[in-house]
């Protein structure tokens, strides 16, 4: 479909969540904005292949994800070196405690396998349905569900077992997460 004003506005309206997705994926604000820019250019160049009435955010997220995947293979090291850049992207500085917790969470998120991280973000933060997330990632709905579940379990293990001092008695948490209450 041609690039109408309303389509252009819809694309623009997707930019904030595209950036959030890109930053969550890459952990690096600069790389994320480059990804968003490439995504927009590619989307606009291929706007004819967008089906009017279909899910525009899902279409854009698919482009961004594919770009990230090909880019990631090349740049893995660079991305890993860039730890800490994420916090700089925040305009509002959370309180010290919240900030610490936030940093821990971000670090834990980066430890997840890429498949699991993107599935968790798409479903848990971007608000896509399992079906949309599956189409964005090019896999089955069941695969997305299991990736999301594994991502949650792993995050829980990373955040609330190892760093449980601020959360509650270690043993209780361990028992809860291990499901060893019989």
């Amino acid at each position, binding site marked *: 479909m041609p*690039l109408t004003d309303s389509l*252009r506005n819809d*694309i*623009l309206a997707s*930019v*904030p*969540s595209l*950036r*959030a*997705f890109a*930053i*969550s994926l890459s952990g690096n604000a600069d790389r994320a*904005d480059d990804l*968003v*820019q490439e995504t*927009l*250019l590619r989307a*606009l160049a291929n706007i004819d292949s967008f089906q009017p009435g279909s899910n525009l955010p899902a279409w854009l997220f698919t482009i961004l994800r594919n770009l990230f995947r090909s880019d990631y293979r090349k740049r893995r090291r660079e991305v890993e070196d860039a730890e800490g850049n994420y916090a700089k*992207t*925040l*305009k*509002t500085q959370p309180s010290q405690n919240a900030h610490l*917790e*936030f940093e821990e*969470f*971000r670090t834990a*998120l980066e430890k997840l396998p890429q498949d699991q991280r993107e599935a*968790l*973000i798409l479903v*848990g*933060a*971007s608000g896509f349905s399992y079906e949309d997330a599956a189409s964005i990632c090019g896999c089955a709905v069941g695969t997305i569900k299991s990736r999301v*579940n*594994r991502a*949650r*379990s792993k*995050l*829980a293990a990373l*955040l*609330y077992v190892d760093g449980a001092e601020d959360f*509650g008695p270690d043993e*209780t948490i361990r*028992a*809860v*997460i*291990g*499901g060893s*209450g019989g």
Partner: protein
Amino acid sequence: MKDLKSQASRSTTPGKGGLTPEIQSRIGHQLRAMYDDVVRQGVPDRFAELIKKLDAPGATPQLGEEGGSNDNTNGRD
């Protein structure tokens, strides 16, 4: 034995993958907080300009209008 169990089940009823609802919602909350921090930053100028520039596809840059098909309505910028 009972007290041990009730202590553990205070925050429990494990759901999928042995996660308690409390931990699940905690993860969800933090995930969205992180994400929404970026969403709230809105659209950086860089992207607004990019999309605006591409408004007229293949537009001849700065060559000036020759046709002038519409007399008064040239406020298309």
